Structure formats: structure tokens, C-alpha cells
């Protein structure tokens, strides 16, 4: 490789003038130069040097291949899906989405980012094909009645003990992931819900889910549905709407909110056990602990590797950072949770690269990071590449975020009784609810996390309709001041980019960085630009 590096070095030097990162260093341009205004459509692909451009192209091809396989595996249902579901069309923006996520990424951080993203693409494409093949709206398939539709904020591990059944997160395809890709898709569903009478001041994510339900845009399959009280009030409320519209027998998986208290565990455990019984009764399938242990081993491995990753996150030498960490951890934990072995294979490869980078003291982004930030609160879904922007523009590396701290306890893999306790603890600490519910101590934990990961800054995602965050607004600011953290509230409306645009979110940071910290941007082309019409 070193010889190859020597060969391509002069080429890289000669073509440096096309590299936006180098251009911003020289003050001759930057990452935003290659875009048509407003649209988010690039005039040309990002030149990253010969090697990294090839890595990027190879990843692009790899993702195309996965999508091709998806279409080939179920061509008619996929076509019908495009016809039936408005959200299907938005998946065509996937490539633009991935390009946007990894702007400015080079070297190992680019490689890891694409490995993680490809794992997600593989999983999602298979999931879309499987769902549409078995969608009762299109006549159903062999597994239509073997699917267990569940609320996506439940982690699927506990359902993996049902051999021959397929847990399926209902909201992930039409609502959660697709809003990451296309900021314009969920406002449609939000409008559907609001046309039905829902006030506009509730959480936009849950309003969107309600709209999807009213619009009959959920994939139709399964014999029952599992709703949940995770992670917040609006989520609980929309579940009641969905249950009624979907019309399947339902079981509400209501776990303890105050999950750190000793009395919580028996209750949450009893609820999960009742849920297992409910599925057994409706599907006629007995829960198989050996099957469960198989997947529990996989999540244990994932969490073991995750904990090792955290050790690298604490240093300046982590090649996994920003959105490549955030999105992957969220998807791997919440949506996969041990159910897809290829994530383990990916983790093993990634951790090897991370170890090597740490040994070589490789600093990501050319060592241009100025601040290390912990991201707290529910992230804006319509601005998935915000961590990328904040690194490229201001040199703020988002080391870890609230949702990455989800359950990381190990699950016993030979004793069902002990395993049930471990599983309950894992489930109780699912997305958001680990810190957003259960009172002050859980929410106030941000400072300990930030300190553990050597952060000097906390970015507080301020979803303007999140009662949990709003209720502690001033106390968070006072805590930041008392504990000596740089602290920025980043206002957003979770899934409705019309209320607070991406630029308005950026301005929250711009103002703090320029007015309070008196810093200059790394890439001035990224400070003010209009991407309101972009995917």
C-alpha cells in the first residue's frame, strides 16, 4: 500500500485544487461550492483524492448492488410499493443522502462510515423487499401471518425466541428512516394528522406516525400488533391511534418509566412475560429459549464491541465519529438488536480498523477538531447530516449522543430466568427512554457522560414540542454554567422541517460559535446556505 501511496501522491497533489476540504484550507472555496443553490443537488461528486474517491465509489456501487438485489428479489411487490406508498419514492434519495452524510470524510473514517452505512442499506433493502412481498395489501405472501408488527421503539431481541416468526418494526420504513433521507416526506403525513384535528403543537414525529396510520400507509401484515409506552407521551398517544386504525389485537408493552428504581424490574419483567404469552396465544408458537440465546449472544458481542469503541471515543484517535457512529448505533441497537448476524461481522471489521487507528494515533478530519461535544435530547430526524456539518464547519466532533447510550448490559445465555432479568434491563433502556423518562437523575446524567468522554461541549437538541426537554430548559443551562461546559440549545421540530429549517438549526450553532466563542469557521461556505428544497 505504501508503494501505491507513493504512486498516487503526485496525482493527489495535482488534483488538490478540486478537493473542497483543501480549498477551504486555502480559502479558495469549500464543501458547499459544488451544489446548486437550494436543491442539495451536487454539480459533481466530491473529489477526495484518488484513494478515498475510489473508496467512496466502491461504496456507492456496493449500495447500488444491494438495491438492485432488493428489486430483483421482489420486482412486482416493489413496483406495487412505489404505486401504493408515498414514502417508497423517497428511498430513491438514498444515494444523495449517503453522499451528504459523509462529506469531508477521508481515510479510515470514510471507510468505516461506508462500512456502517452499507450494513444499514443491506438490512433495509432486505427488510423492504420482505415487507412488500408479504404485504396483505398486495395479496400477501408466505410469511404474512408469521410477521409480528411491533412499535419500532421496542427492541426486537425479546421476540427472537419465536422461531419461524419475523418481528417487524412498523414505523421504521414509512416514518423514521425515511425522514432521515428525505426532509419533505413526513410533513405530508403530519398534515394528514392535522387535517384530522390533531393540534400542531404535539411532537411532529408522533404526528407523522398518526398521519401514516390515517393514510393507511403502514405495511399490512401479522396477526397482532405490539405497541409500547416507549419513549414518551406523544408516542404512547399515537400508539392508541394506530391500534384503532390498524385493527389488529394489540398488546401494550408498558415498561416502568422510573426504570432505575428497584421496584421497576419485577413489573417490567412481568409485562414482557405477558407479551410473550400474548404472542404465543395468537401465533400458536412456543417461545424457544435456545433460539433466543442464539441472538442474545450476538447482541452481547455487539455490546462488547460497542464498549470497546467507547474507550476509543474517549481519545482524540477514534476513526468512528459523528453521524457514522450515531446512525449506525441507533439502527443496530434499536432495529437489529442481535437479529442480523452481518452487523456482528461488520462490527468485528470496524473495531480492527479502530484499534489500528488508535495505535497509529490517527486523528480524524485531519486533526482539525476544536471541540468535543456530547449530543443530548432527541435528534432532528430531518437533519441527519447535522453532525457532519458541525464538524466540517466549526470543527465540533460529536463524540457520542444520548441514543447511543442505550442498554449495554450483557444478557445471560444459558439460564432463562436470569436472561429474562437481563433482557428486561436492556429493554427498559431503549431509545430515548434511557434518559428522557424516569425523572431528573436520568436527564441530568448528560454531564457525567460528557465528562467520561472528555467533552468540553454539550449540544442540547431542543425539540420544540418535546415536553421532556422543555421542562428542564433553564436547569440545563444553569448546570452547564456551573459545571463549565460550552452549551448550545439547537432548536428543531424533529420531523417537520417547515417549522425550523436546517439553516435555522445551523444558526443556533453559528451564533454561539461566532458571538460567544469568537471562533471563525473552518469552512466559510458552510455557514450560511439554503438547502430548504434538498432531499
Amino acid at each position, binding site marked *: 500500500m505504501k508503494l501505491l501511496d507513493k504512486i498516487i501522491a503526485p496525482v493527489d497533489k495535482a488534483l488538490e485544487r478540486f478537493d473542497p476540504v483543501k480549498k477551504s484550507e486555502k480559502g479558495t472555496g469549500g464543501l458547499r461550492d459544488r451544489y446548486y443553490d437550494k436543491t442539495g443537488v451536487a454539480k459533481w461528486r466530491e473529489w477526495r483524492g484518488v484513494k478515498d474517491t475510489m473508496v467512496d465509489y466502491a461504496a456507492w456501487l456496493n449500495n447500488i448492488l444491494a438495491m438492485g438485489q432488493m428489486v430483483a428479489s421482489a420486482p412486482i411487490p416493489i413496483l406495487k410499493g412505489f404505486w401504493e406508498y408515498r414514502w417508497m419514492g423517497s428511498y430513491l434519495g438514498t444515494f444523495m443522502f449517503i453522499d451528504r452524510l459523509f462529506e469531508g470524510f477521508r481515510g479510515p473514517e470514510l471507510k468505516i462510515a461506508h462500512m456502517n452505512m452499507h450494513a444499514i442499506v443491506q438490512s433495509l433493502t432486505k427488510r423492504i423487499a420482505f415487507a412488500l412481498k408479504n404485504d396483505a395489501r398486495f395479496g400477501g405472501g408466505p410469511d404474512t401471518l408469521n410477521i409480528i408488527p411491533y412499535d419500532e421503539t421496542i427492541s426486537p431481541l425479546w421476540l427472537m425466541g419465536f422461531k419461524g416468526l419475523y418481528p417487524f418494526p412498523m414505523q421504521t420504513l414509512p416514518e423514521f428512516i425515511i425522514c432521515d433521507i428525505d426532509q419533505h416526506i413526513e410533513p405530508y403525513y403530519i398534515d394528514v394528522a392535522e387535517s384530522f384535528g*390533531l393540534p400542531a403543537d404535539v411532537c411532529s414525529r*408522533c404526528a407523522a406516525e398518526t398521519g401514516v396510520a390515517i393514510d393507511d400507509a403502514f405495511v399490512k401484515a401479522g396477526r397482532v400488533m405490539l405497541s409500547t409506552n416507549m419513549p414518551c407521551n*406523544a408516542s404512547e398517544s399515537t400508539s392508541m391511534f394506530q391500534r384503532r386504525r390498524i385493527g389488529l389485537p394489540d398488546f401494550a408493552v408498558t415498561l416502568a418509566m422510573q426504570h432505575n428504581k428497584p421496584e421497576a424490574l419485577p413489573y417490567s419483567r412481568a409485562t414482557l412475560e405477558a407479551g410473550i404469552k400474548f404472542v404465543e396465544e395468537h401465533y400458536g408458537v412456543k417461545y424457544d429459549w435456545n433460539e433466543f440465546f442464539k441472538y442474545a449472544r450476538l447482541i452481547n458481542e455487539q455490546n462488547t464491541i460497542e464498549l470497546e469503541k467507547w474507550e476509543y471515543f474517549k481519545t482524540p484517535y477514534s476513526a468512528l465519529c459523528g453521524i457514522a457512529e450515531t446512525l449506525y448505533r441507533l439502527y443496530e441497537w434499536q432495529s437489529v438488536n442481535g437479529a442480523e448476524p452481518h452487523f456482528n461481522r461488520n462490527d468485528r471489521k470496524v473495531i480492527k480498523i479502530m484499534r489500528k487507528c488508535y495505535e497509529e494515533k490517527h486523528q480524524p478530519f485531519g486533526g482539525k477538531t476544536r471541540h468535543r461535544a456530547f449530543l443530548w435530547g432527541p435528534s432532528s430526524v430531518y437533519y441527519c447530516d447535522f453532525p457532519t456539518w458541525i464538524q466540517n464547519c466549526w470543527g465540533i466532533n460529536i463524540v457520542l449522543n444520548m441514543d447511543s447510550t442505550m442498554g449495554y448490559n450483557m444478557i445471560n445465555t444459558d439460564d432463562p430466568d436470569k436472561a429474562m432479568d437481563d433482557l428486561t434491563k436492556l429493554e427498559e433502556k431503549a431509545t430515548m427512554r434511557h434518559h428522557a423518562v424516569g425523572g431528573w437523575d436520568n436527564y441530568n446524567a448528560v454531564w457525567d457522560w460528557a465528562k467520561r468522554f472528555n467533552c468540553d461541549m454539550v449540544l442540547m437538541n431542543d425539540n420544540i414540542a418535546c415536553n421532556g426537554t422543555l421542562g428542564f*430548559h433553564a436547569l440545563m443551562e444553569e448546570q452547564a454554567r456551573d459545571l463549565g461546559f460550552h452549551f448550545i440549545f439547537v432548536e428543531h421540530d424533529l420531523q417537520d422541517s417547515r417549522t425550523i429549517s436546517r439553516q435555522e438549526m445551523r444558526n443556533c450553532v453559528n451564533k454561539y460559535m461566532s458571538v460567544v466563542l469568537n471562533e471563525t469557521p473552518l469552512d466559510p461556505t458552510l455557514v450560511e446556505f439554503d438547502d430548504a428544497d434538498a432531499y
Partner: protein
Amino acid sequence: MKDLKHLIYFENLLQDAQNELVDQAKAAGQYALGYNCYYIPEVLLNLPGCFSSRLRAPRCTSTDIAGYYMTNRSCPYARSILERAIEGGYNYLDALFGAESCATMDRMESHFFLINPVKNDRFFVTQVDPPMKGDSINLEYYKVQLRVKVLEPLKERLGVDVSDEAIRTAVEKHNRLCRVITEIGSLRKLPNPPITGYEFHVIQLVSQVCPHDLILPYLEETLEELKTREPEEKFPFRARVVLVGSEVDDPDFTKLIETCGAMVVADRYCFGSFPSREQIEIQEGETAFEAVCRTYLKWNQCARFMDGGKIDQRHDEVERLVKEFGADGIIYENMKFCEFWSYEKVLASNIFINERHIPTCTIEKEYALGAVGQLRTRFQAFIESLEIKQIQGGK
């Protein structure tokens, strides 16, 4: 109708959280125990030596300081309570028994121990994790929560007798109060009731915010008075409605509806008598505490319950009230920024209008009644539509 003897006295009692009866009870050495939500059984806060005080923030016109802590985008009820606490309006409290029944309530109650607004050395806060389903698993959890977060702190921190005998005595007293309020409330079923919705709202509220021992004689006297009270010659309202929703603790809101022409014949909201005035029946083989938990979980109509049984119960209960109280329609209210009631209001109005064919009006309001012009217009239009239906024979 002739004015009720104690109505003005009751109205005055509602002007401040710390009213003269609260002062009397405190002077007698009783502990004042605050709560915000039906999930905290009032009866457990009325054990010997204690009295319950459901928190209101009467005459609250500005929430500037609470807005700083919780932003002005959060529930105005919660903000108003916090504002009143910071103003010193709850310094009489010895404890607050909170419930994480919604995120805002949790945050508001957390401020009671984080910024110490209540200037009372004895004061402490606990918060229960309230159940979200009506099944046996959730009943057990409810019992654990109330034991750990209510009974044990009462015993350990205030030395209150929480024995079964003490709870039985509290239940008996509670039932006596409930009987009186229920009897008064049932008068609203009559075609031409000798009481207005506003008057009942005032009576129900004083029963929640005053020490029971001290308010009960007044309530009993009022009941006797009502039994012989001559109603208006002709029913003075154009329609009868059931009011459903969240924290309606301002009788002027009921008055607003009634001045628009509809009598509020049943009150199914958080400060209302449905639920809150159901008697507790201790069954054979169960302790008084178990009976309290079972009764409160059974009757709880909170919009946060997620299981099908409880969701259906919410709607069935409203329909029952419509039938029993001869209502022509329903008004669903939700406090601004309240997610649970925002969703419930939309779902329920759809069910009532399209499936159960009961006219339903939905409104959103602030905690403090300020500009009421828009609400008045909504109510007038709704009442007019009810009248037209009556003229057309219900078509």
C-alpha cells in the same frame, strides 16, 4: 333560583390555595399534603393527622418565572403551579406526592425539590411511576408504588399512622364525603335541576382543596338546602352537555359554557367528580389499602392508559354520563401543549360523532381564562347546532 347559603363562602375558599380552612387545619397541627393528579389517591393523604390539598393556582395571570424554567411551550397548568410555588403560595405544604403521569407534570414536580420553592423545612417530594394499563400486573405495580412513594414516606418522615385500621377510618370518612358530593351531583340528572353546573363545580373543587373534616359540615348543609331548593320555573338552558378533559379547576370556565346556554350536567375531567367521588368498597379478604388501589385503578380515566380495555372504558364512561345525565352533547377540552388529551380529544370526537352519533365539540384552552371570545363563539355555535338537532327531532 335562590342563592346557595354557602356559595360565596365556597367561592372565597377557591381564591387561594392556602385558604382559611387550610390555615385552621395547619393551626391544629395537621400536615398539609399536596398532590396534582388522580393517580395519587386522595384518601391516603387524609390519614389521621393529615389533610389533602389538590394544587391549583387560582388567579394566576402570568407564568414568567416558570416560563424561564420550563419555557412557554409547556403545559400552562404545570407552569402555573410552579409559578405559584415560586411565589410562595404553597409554603403551607409539608409534602408533595407527585406522579410521573406526563412528562411536564414530572418536570414541574421535579422543580419542587430542585429549586426548593416551598419554604418549609419539613417539605419533601415523592413521585410515583403510575401504571398505564388496568390489568393485574399493573395493579400490583400501583400497590408497590403507593406503598413505597406514599405510605412509607408518610410513616417514616412524618410519623403518620398508616396501619390498616387507620386507612379503614380514612376510607369511611372519604366515603361519607363522596356520598354527599355524589348526591349533590346526581341532582343534575333531573330535567330541571336545582343546581347549576357552575355551582356544582365550585362545590366539587372545595371538596378537593379544603381539609375534609372542615368542609364536610358545609357540604352536608348545602345538600340539605338543595333538597328543598326550588329550581327555576322553566329549565333555563338551551342544552345539556358533558364536559370532558384535563385540568379544569376554574369554575369560571363552566360558567362560560353556561352563559353561552348549555348546562354542564356532568364533569368528567381531572378536577371533576367523575372520577373522584366513587366510594371505596373494601371486599372480604382484602386490606383497606388494597381496596384503595383497586378502586382508583378501576375508575381512573386518564388519557394515558394504553390498553384496549381502559381506552374503551374512557369512551363508555362518557357515553354512560351522556345517557344518565340526559346530555345533548359533549365538549372535549384539552390544555394547550397537552399531548395525551390532544390525541384523546381527536380520537374520542371521531368515535362519538361517527360511531356513537353523539354531537361533540372540541376545544383547546389556556389554564387561565383570558381572552374568551373565541371560546364563546365555539360554544355558541355548538349549542346552536344542538338546538337545531332538538328542533329537527335529533336528526
